[in-house]
């Protein structure tokens, strides 16, 4: 244990504690900008400098471990002067046109400037031409260098959490900037559009490309029938942006709000999550048969999931040799889009050209996905606009809806019914668990052998999870699987995806099925989720998701009556020709930079 004093108050803390953490224990908040609990310490914004008695210079509280007998002052004259100077310096290289900024009111630099009463700023404005500093080329992310304060949260996120490193620091001195490879336009580079950088950017330098006005225009157009789908992870996070504590599920209020905003049909991505399980489960079993029985060497195992568009773009860039291992299933969003303008249109007798299909996603990569040329199998753009959870929260506020007091409302039908298995798509391991619940039952005729159907080994926040299920007592059709140990892996966060893929590349993993989600924690930690998103908040959202699953009357995808109906009325059988036309796709190799 280490003894020290902070502002004259004594305390004892563990060795290795930073000054920042120690001060927190005494209820002193030291301001920070570059610090983020998900990331390694940078110590470069210097906003957290404090005085260490006897030291020639101030020290960064985030980067300095406590030592025995240390005396710290967090509000001395030199600390206050320096801190104010630093905030002013950051403002001088920042396009501080706050009222016009998308992050107005949610910017950490803005609130610090306010806290320290930075008025008429002293220093010269260093931004010469802010308009030339914006990169709008990406479908998902807007990067505005004129608002960047070089805290490197984005660079560290992209490198440490995602292992992508599309963002790097380039140049030095006054020319230093956050850059892509060779400063190429964002749409051309290796960026997976995961949006994790947005979640951690303290200012408006990285934001989602928002489609709020597009959606309002569609809603306000009387000719259009606007269909909205909501992803599993949105219902457990939207509340955070509208006044609720983290971990509060707001499914019914969300549906109510969407109706009040004016969406014509409020439907659920969970429906197509169930559909994904049927299609992908069938694909897995078919591949297993092709490999184990038919000894086909043109069929690839392990099979990996394809729900996460960040993961898809990652593998297209980095492991193109393994694209054949990726499930041909589209993501639930795109399955929904394809069905909305075909099956739904037919059933509801609406001309598909008048349907505007909108999705609410915890994700920024979904915006890119919806714009992929492959995603037009209905004959139209299958999903017209993708809104993040954050954008929906903004629309709710714009519509003047008192969200917290809304009554719960149910989804419309058809394509509004879902099972518990689809809800857990929002958490890492959820797709795996849902798939196992169905596949095991198809093969053996019995429920998966876990208490309450909860497959605990694939749950939780460990970066890479491995599990295996021994299959026995197969029905006649699946006898070839008798005694097979089905080996599964689950990874979330692309840095962990890389770890799994390196194993697969070496060929010593022996996996049959792999679930990969681009974002830490899975979709519940997605790049379109409310800010802040951190490990504590992710854990709360996960708990809410599993509670929602437990509360559902139907817990298995293949028991969803609307799923049974869509096959009967429209698709035929799983992996049928029609399914392939509408619900499956292919991927392509992309540049490695």
């Amino acid at each position, binding site marked *: 244990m280490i003894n020290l004093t902070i502002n004259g108050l004594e305390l004892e803390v563990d060795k290795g504690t930073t000054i920042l953490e120690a001060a927190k224990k005494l209820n002193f908040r030291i301001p920070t900008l570059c610090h983020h609990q998900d990331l390694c310490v940078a110590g470069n914004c210097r906003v957290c400098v404090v005085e260490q008695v006897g030291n020639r210079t101030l020290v960064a509280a985030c980067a300095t471990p406590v030592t025995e007998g240390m005396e710290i002052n967090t509000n001395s004259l030199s600390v206050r002067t320096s801190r104010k100077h630093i905030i002013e310096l950051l403002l001088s290289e920042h396009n501080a046109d706050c009222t016009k900024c998308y992050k107005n009111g949610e910017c950490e630099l803005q609130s610090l400037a306010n806290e320290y009463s930075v008025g008429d700023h002293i220093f010269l404005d260093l931004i010469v031409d802010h308009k030339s500093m914006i990169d709008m080329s990406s479908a998902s992310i807007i990067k505005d260098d004129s608002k960047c304060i070089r805290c490197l949260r984005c660079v560290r996120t992209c*490198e440490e959490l995602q292992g*992508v*490193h*599309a*963002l*790097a*620091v*380039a*140049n*030095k001195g006054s020319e230093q900037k956050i*850059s*892509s*490879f*060779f400063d190429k336009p964002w749409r051309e*580079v*290796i960026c997976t559009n995961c949006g994790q950088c947005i979640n951690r950017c303290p200012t408006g330098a990285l934001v989602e490309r928002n489609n709020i006005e597009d959606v309002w225009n569609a809603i306000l157009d009387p000719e259009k029938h606007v269909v909205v789908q909501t992803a599993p992870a949105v219902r457990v996070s939207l509340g955070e942006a509208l006044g609720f504590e983290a971990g509060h599920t707001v499914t019914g209020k969300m549906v109510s709000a969407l109706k009040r905003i004016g969406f014509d049909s409020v439907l659920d991505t969970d429906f197509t999550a169930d559909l994904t399980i049927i299609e992908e489960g069938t694909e897995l079993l078919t591949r297993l048969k092709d490999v184990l029985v038919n000894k086909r060497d043109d069929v690839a195992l392990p099979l990996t999931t394809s729900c996460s568009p960040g993961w898809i773009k990652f593998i297209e860039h980095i492991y193109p040799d393994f694209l054949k291992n990726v499930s041909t299933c589209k993501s639930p969003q795109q399955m929904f889009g394809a069905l909305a303008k075909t099956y739904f249109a037919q059933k509801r007798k609406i001309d598909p050209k008048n349907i505007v299909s909108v999705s609410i996603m915890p994700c920024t990569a979904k915006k890119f996905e919806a714009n992929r040329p492959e995603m037009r199998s209905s004959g139209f753009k299958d999903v017209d606009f993708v809104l993040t959870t954050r954008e929906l929260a903004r629309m709710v506020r714009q519509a003047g809806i008192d969200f917290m007091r809304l009554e719960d409302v149910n989804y419309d039908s058809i394509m509004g019914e879902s099972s518990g298995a689809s809800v857990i798509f929002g958490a890492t391991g959820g797709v795996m668990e849902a798939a196992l619940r169905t596949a095991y039952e198809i093969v053996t005729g019995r429920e998966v052998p876990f208490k309450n159907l909860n497959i605990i080994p694939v749950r939780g926040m460990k970066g890479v999870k491995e599990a295996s299920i021994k299959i026995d007592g197969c029905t006649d059709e699946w006898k070839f699987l008798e005694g097979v140990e089905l080996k599964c892996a689950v990874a979330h966060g692309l840095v962990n995806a890389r770890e799994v893929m390196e194993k697969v590349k070496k060929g010593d993993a022996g996996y049959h099925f792999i679930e990969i989600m681009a974002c830490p924690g899975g979709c519940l930690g997605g790049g379109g989720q409310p800010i802040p998103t951190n490990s504590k908040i992710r854990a709360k959202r996960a708990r809410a998701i599993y509670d929602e699953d437990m509360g559902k009357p139907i817990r298995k995808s293949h028991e969803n009556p609307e799923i049974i109906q869509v096959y009967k009325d429209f698709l035929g059988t799983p992996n049928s020709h029609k399914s392939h036309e509408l619900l499956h796709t292919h991927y392509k190799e992309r540049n*490695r*930079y």
Partner: protein
Amino acid sequence: MPDQEKLVKELADKHGRKREFLLPILQELVYEKNYLTDESMRYVAKELNISAADVYGTASFYTFLDTELRGKYVIRVCKTISCSMKGKDEILHVICDTLKIDVGETTLDKKFSLLATNCIGWCHKAPAMLINDIPFIELTPSKVTKILQDYIKR
């Protein structure tokens, strides 16, 4: 295999593929090819299994690892104080006039690039400049003209 790719492979074989060999490889690429192209940096990223943005970010930190087109002979005239006091401007003027380029530019035949650089450690024999690795010191207008004529003939 394209020329650049082959060269990068050879350099990676020679130095090794660990991160610590990134700078030696980039330095030798610049030595061979005068500057780093988009293509060559992508090959380096692939060989060392690091991101291309990371390679670019690292290279662009170092003034001598040029990521812009440079000529066969890169002239770096010292602009730091001692050389400035001893007539650096005049030397730059002579070079600009002779090569018909400004500071930061490269001649059309891609033979010369002219840059101003920070202290090169010849303050007592100022003004000084480097042409690629070679220092030229105690420069005068006539001396620098002679040096350039010599290089032009090469």
